[in-house]
């Protein structure tokens, strides 16, 4: 288990370095950063001044190492728009995004796993059809559109829920549903197909031959086996949800880092965009590592040699 964890950790570190290089390069590829920072009416002297001030005249490798070195110390420089350290700007907003991401994940899991289990024990019945329809809708419907529909129906017509802001728990309900719905199809289908496969396996027949009650067969033996890939997916899906929150936060005007990213792209606030891209990627890498470790914990075939 320790060797396995160290191996995964090593791989994660390699991925993290690669991702950081890519996120560093992406910003450079989108145009000359000095021109972007200087604004539309800048003279060539001003652009040149900014280029030297921000160190854009140095070789790329040096720029990257310098940037990475400071990033490791949580120093992403200063935002030209806010005139504040990037770290503080992100720190003020990341709470909202994490809250939204975790709540969405919980919502998605809480809805999709029972639905997947139900669909699997009654395959090809109306329960199964409804579950599959819900998941097809989730796959087909863009989350921003679903968010807008909810705003119109629940917020404007029925006046049940607030449509924007982060003041109370109620403010998070619609964003959570909109973002969580995005994760439901994958969880639901994986649970259903996993359960169907396990339920027809030999060891379930053994469990039944032992005289175990149906509930115990279903939850102790079937779900335990079927859930392993779902848990792995959940960790990765949380990463996608944090990424997806860029859209949802904009729709519901939640001041998280997603909304910040969207605004900063418009403002060409490069240090902020770069820091968010890097942060989200690192969270994603960490979640993937976490999912590998949870997987090994749940599956003795990985854990015990």
């Amino acid at each position, binding site marked *: 288990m320790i060797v396995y964890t160290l191996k995964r950790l090593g791989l994660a570190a390699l991925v993290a370095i690669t991702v950081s290089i890519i996120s560093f390069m992406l910003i450079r590829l989108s145009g000359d950063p000095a021109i972007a920072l200087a604004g539309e009416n800048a003279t060539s002297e001003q652009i040149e001044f900014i280029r030297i001030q921000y160190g854009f005249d140095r070789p790329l490798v040096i720029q990257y190492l310098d940037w990475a070195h400071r990033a490791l110390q949580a120093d992403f420089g200063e935002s030209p728009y806010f005139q504040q350290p990037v770290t503080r700007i992100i720190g003020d907003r990341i709470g909202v995004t994490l809250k939204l991401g975790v709540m969405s994940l919980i919502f998605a899991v809480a809805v999709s796993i029972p639905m997947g289990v139900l669909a699997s024990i009654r395959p090809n019945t109306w329960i199964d059809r409804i579950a599959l329809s819900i998941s097809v809708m989730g796959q087909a419907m863009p989350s921003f559109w679903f968010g807008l529909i909810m705003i119109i129906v629940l917020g404007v017509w029925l006046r049940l829920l607030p449509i924007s802001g982060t003041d109370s728990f109620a403010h998070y309900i619609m964003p959570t549903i909109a973002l969580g719905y995005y994760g439901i199809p994958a969880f639901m289908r994986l649970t259903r197909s996993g359960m169907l496969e396990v339920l027809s396996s030999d060891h379930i*027949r*053994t469990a039944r031959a032992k*005289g175990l009650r149906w509930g115990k067969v279903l939850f102790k*033996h079937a779900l*335990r*086996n079927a859930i392993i890939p779902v848990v792995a997916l959940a960790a990765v899906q949380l990463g996608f949800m944090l990424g997806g929150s860029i859209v949802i936060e904009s729709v519901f005007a939640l001041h998280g880092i997603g909304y910040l990213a969207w605004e900063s792209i418009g403002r060409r606030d490069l240090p902020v965009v770069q820091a968010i891209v890097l942060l989200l990627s690192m969270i994603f890498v960490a979640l993937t590592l976490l999912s590998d470790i949870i997987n090994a914990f749940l*599956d003795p*075939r990985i854990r*015990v040699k």
Partner: protein
Amino acid sequence: MKSVLEVKSLYVDLPLPAGMLHAVRNVSFHVNQGETVSLVGESGCGKSMTALAVMNLLPRKGVRRAEVLSFEGRDLMKIDDSKMADIRGNKMAMIFQEPMTSLDPCYTIGNQLEEAILQHRKVSTAEARDRAVFLLEKVGITAAESRLKQYPHQLSGGLRQRVMIAMGLMCGPSLIIADEPTTALDVTIQAQILSLLASLQQEFEMGLILITHDLGVVSRTADRLAVMYCGEVVETGTTEEVFDNPIHPYTRGLMDCIPVPGKTKPGEKLGSIPGMVPTPIGELTGCSFRNRCPSASPDCARTETRLIEISPGRAYRCLLSPEACAVEWNRA
């Protein structure tokens, strides 16, 4: 002798896209205490379905009906699912063909063994563990105590099958159903597992239903046997009677397929039965073996065959008399 299981006119039907599969048709047999009864036949002849019907573990949509299906005097056709679950793993245990996949990969051997007795008896986990260790030693597993903490993937196929046997014995059942318990194992392990089953059966005075396609296994272990073909019993009797004097052309064909030391000459070709087992789907008429039978006549397609009893417990299913069967067989 006390009868443990009594099966009379058992039918199993499975709806398939191609039509109704009559997997088991009019099968009758009984098992006494301490006795081994073997169900013999090719793959798909309904022997496993017979066992699953007795355990009430048929696949979803599988339907069973029987004139009599009684276990220790209780009518299994009448009791509800939870009462049946009380019998399963408790009084009646089953060992499956695939030891590699028959254990749950997520739990330790100990957990899965203990679970079997905790379900049916009011015992502490410590007592359950002691029982598990006792039985693991009984089935010839060394270092039983430490095995309890191991997971199925850490054991070989032979060991896993031993664990399955120990699991079946946890509650001290009066009937064990072993469905091809050695088919998936190496030949050297097969003999060990069979003699283990036989000795445990003697020791605990259990009834044993041994399902197999291997006549060698039958001759060594079974007291009585029923040869099945296409969902029906085509011949039944004591092992001695059937091996010494097979009547049905199918039984004779099976016997011809095995080499006999001292009798089969080197280089001599072993017998084989031409053709394939028909799938019993839809309406069935006549003898199901007629297409592969060397003694078939036009009558075989029209007339229903019945199991004809020639002495108590000795029966065969053919239109011809035993003598005529023998004559026809030797001619062919």
